[in-house]
């Protein structure tokens, strides 16, 4: 469902030359397993996870290279049509934009006294006495939680002060996963994705079957065997 329309000024990143306009472009993102570990950890330590996202995250990252952009078509300055803009911060479309954003967020969190994960650079933690505060970053999505609820309040305050944030609340939907945090544990499902996919391929009314593959008749390169096809249709 479309809730609102967006327009965005985008730089033509494909015209950038390596070494001149950009250097390092790698930006770490979390692996799915890190996310599962975090959910299992939170479930075991009996605390709730929350999420928020940063509005137009990439526009926050300061650039270390000097980059110029042409004036956007339709918005040229009539007095100086030949002038260009020198960028202070990243624009969407620039090759280094994700990295500039990650560095910006990392520096900010480290300054606030967070520790960066040794195995996973997208994980930040802070330990005070026996309490732990954890946040996991997935580009502009931030998942956080703590054994001490006061830390959550504090964290959202410092984040809103520094960045423009939106969508704060209990973690329910992330990267296509539906998450239900209940009293006895946590559910992680992709029901919505599954039903949408079945609809897309016009399979939602198909006859259900209880197993994925027959135990006999392995697939091989010659796939026109009629007996084999029959085995796959049989329940």
């Amino acid at each position, binding site marked *: 469902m479309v809730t609102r329309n967006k327009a965005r000024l985008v730089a033509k990143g494909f015209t950038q030359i390596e070494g001149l306009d950009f250097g390092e472009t790698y930006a770490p993102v979390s692996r*799915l*397993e*890190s996310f*599962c*570990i975090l959910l*299992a*950890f939170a*479930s*075991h330590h*009996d605390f709730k996870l929350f999420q928020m996202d940063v509005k137009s995250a990439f526009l926050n990252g300061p650039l270390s290279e000097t980059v110029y952009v042409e004036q956007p078509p339709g918005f040229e300055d009539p007095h100086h049509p030949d002038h260009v803009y020198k960028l202070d911060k990243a624009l969407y479309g620039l090759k280094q934009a994700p990295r500039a954003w990650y560095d910006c967020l990392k520096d900010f969190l480290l300054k606030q006294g967070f*520790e960066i*994960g*040794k*195995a*996973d650079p997208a*994980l930040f*933690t802070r*330990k005070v006495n026996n309490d732990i505060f*954890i946040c996991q970053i997935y580009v502009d999505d931030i998942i956080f939680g703590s054994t001490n609820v006061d830390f959550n309040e504090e964290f959202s305050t410092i984040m809103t002060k520094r960045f423009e944030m939106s969508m704060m609340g209990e973690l329910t939907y992330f990267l*296509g996963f*539906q998450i*239900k945090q*209940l009293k*006895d*544990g*946590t*559910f*992680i*499902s*992709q*029901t919505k*994705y*599954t*039903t949408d*996919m*079945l609809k*897309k*391929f016009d*399979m939602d009314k*198909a*006859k*259900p*079957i*209880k*197993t*994925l*593959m*027959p*135990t006999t008749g*392995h*697939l*091989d*390169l*010659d*796939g*026109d*065997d009629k007996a*084999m*096809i029959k085995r*796959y249709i049989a329940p």
Partner: protein
Amino acid sequence: MIGSLLYLSRPNIMLSVCICARFQANPKECHLMAVKRIFWYLVFTPNLSLWYPKGSTFTLLGYSDSDYAGCRVERKSTSGICQFLGRSLVSWSSKKQNSIALSTAEAEYVAVGACYAQLLWMKQTLRDFGCEQRKIPLLCDNEGAIKLADNPINHSRTKHIDIHHHFLRDHQSKGDIAVQHVRTEFQLADIFTKPLDESRFCALRRELNIVDSRNIA
């Protein structure tokens, strides 16, 4: 169709999706049927989800299994591995091995190595959370592979196994992991290596804590 199935992170369908993906270069009618059958299964179980119960234990545990020469085309074996934190399934994988194994023990040994590499990474990550894990149990149903991890002896049938798989042996001797035997019926990684019949498939699915979210909520 396979592309959108790959985005579905559901452990129990992964093996079938991977097998189908192997025939993408030259698909025939029967391969299409196999993909369709995955969809029929999804129609049957759209609500399955991972369940992370709140419990007392929070230790890492790895399962590793392999299907010797499971691929009918190249005769390569399939590794199936999964890792638990307490009773929560946090990571899983099913992969056709890169080299052809000469024995079941070798195929299992390669799978144990892959499983351990993942456990090592998870151990590091858990250290960031402030949890220290020692002597991580890794369950495997093949005695030969366990013996291989224990003893630095080269037998005539194992001496060809590549050096990089032996990093496992190093960690076993340091006591970072404990490769242990598990009976085949309790081998949960079985589901990631070969097609199973309905009762075994459902039993393993339950053991992996993949449940219908409507039943509990």
